[in-house]
């Protein structure tokens, strides 16, 4: 347990070392947020689309932004690089569980990020004249908490593909595009055409954005949070299984 605590602390400090890249990602997603707000404002006006009026759409957009930002501190690139360059070999010699060690680092990188997200959300709330209050505050909090391990699992599983590829950029983009589409980050899932809404309903991605958002807006209750928890557990053990397969595919050059 002490080893994991150290990893957590080191990773928390690392975020400061990579503050420029963090800042860039913040400005980038800020631009995306402005574009989303602008297009939805133009779309909605004073009316409503698919059950969303402007105050509830604002809440939806800001929750989807917060869940997208979460875990974006660059940890995934460092993990991917270590696998691609073969440095993962030294990680393997360490007497800690690989998956738990990365999770500890991930949690460490969140410390600063959670503060930044809180500031970001408050700023947006101030600038856009507030948004609808949460319908189920406690359940929403639980749902947001579950987003944390879920985002880790997506990142971790994607990084593990690096055992088979020689470049992470394409994998990361494909992963981000899939999450964007099927999580509800692009557009609320209820507005998607059926041929996309159906896979979205059975895939795990909806648990990272749509789930907390619809709990916040009171469109769904406890059942959504249970599904989220189910995905956390299932993905955690899938990753363990994949890890065992991946080790057999590992190529490390030089010695």
């Amino acid at each position, binding site marked *: 347990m002490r080893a994991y605590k150290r990893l957590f602390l080191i990773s928390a400090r690392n975020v400061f070392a990579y503050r420029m890249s963090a800042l860039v990602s913040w400005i980038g997603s800020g*631009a995306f947020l402005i574009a989303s707000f*602008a297009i939805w404002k133009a*779309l909605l006006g004073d009316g409503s*689309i698919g059950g969303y009026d402007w105050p509830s759409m604002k809440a939806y957009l800001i929750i989807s932004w917060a869940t997208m930002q979460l875990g974006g501190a660059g940890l995934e690139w460092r993990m991917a690089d270590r696998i691609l360059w073969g440095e993962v070999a030294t990680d393997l010699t360490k007497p800690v569980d690989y998956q738990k060690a990365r999770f500890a680092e991930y949690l460490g990188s969140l410390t600063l990020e959670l503060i930044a997200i809180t500031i970001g959300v408050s700023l947006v709330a101030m600038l856009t004249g507030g948004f609808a209050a949460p319908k189920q505050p406690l359940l929403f909090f639980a749902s947001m908490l579950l987003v944390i391990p879920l985002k880790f699992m997506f990142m971790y599983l994607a990084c593990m593909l690096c055992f088979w*590829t020689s470049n992470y950029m*394409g994998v990361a983009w494909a992963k981000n595009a899939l999450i964007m589409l099927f999580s509800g980050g692009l557009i609320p899932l209820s*507005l998607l*055409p059926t041929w996309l809404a159906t896979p979205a309903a059975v895939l795990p991605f909806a648990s990272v954005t749509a789930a907390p958002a619809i709990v916040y807006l009171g469109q769904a209750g406890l059942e959504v949070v249970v599904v989220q928890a189910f995905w956390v557990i299932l993905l955690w053990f899938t990753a363990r299984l994949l890890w065992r397969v991946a080790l057999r595919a590992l190529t490390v050059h030089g010695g």
Partner: protein
Amino acid sequence: MRVYFRILGAHLRSTLEYEADFAIMVVAGLLFQLLNLVFLSAIFAQVPHINGWTYAECVLVAGMYGIIAGLSPLFFEGMWSISWRINKGELDYPLIRPAPVAAQVIGSRIGLHGVGDLIVGGSMAGWAVTQVSVSWTPLTVAIGLLLFVSAAAIHLSFVTIFNLASFWIPGPHPFLAITMHNIEDMVRYPLTIYGQGLRLAFTVLVPFAFVTFFPLVWLLGKPFAWAGLLTPVVALWSVWLARFTFRRGLLRYESSGH
């Protein structure tokens, strides 16, 4: 120019060696462009137009941006490597070779996700062009092509300029360029949806408005259509600025210690 295409061709062949990576990159490019289409289709299933822009017109904006944005990874990807070249003193090699530095740097990489961008962006724009109400004459086509080339030149010039900022901002990563690229992504929608300050900034400060919006405003005959005809002028200014920045930057270049 010949040197540039020789270098680029060599990198294309070396990149194609990694087939799985190539496939993933193209698919990633495809997916991101398709997201724009899905988004537009989903919202236009609910409303007939946004600020007077119809579905086909919005698809044209997004498609044109897809094509232009796809050109930079395919032909200008090397620009993104200049910050670490400066940082590591790697610019020494292009400087002493008997070929233009810009050609060597710009051709030094190729990003194949551009293929995905071009395919989807091209299909979107191609479909949209047949749907919008434009009275096509040879003159419209000629001016349209000129505006398109100008718009692409503006985009590529500013990719270059913001990456060249690394001559003045130390560090191995092109942070300014990445940030500006994310901001430029906002022009995938018609600019009318944004507030006045942002529209002004995109017109005067950094002319991203000329990458999609103004050329299409001219083509579609919307208010301020005349502004679209300024695109070639803005393009000339952008290209000049990029070349000027390159020269000034190279003068500032200090190699790392040897």
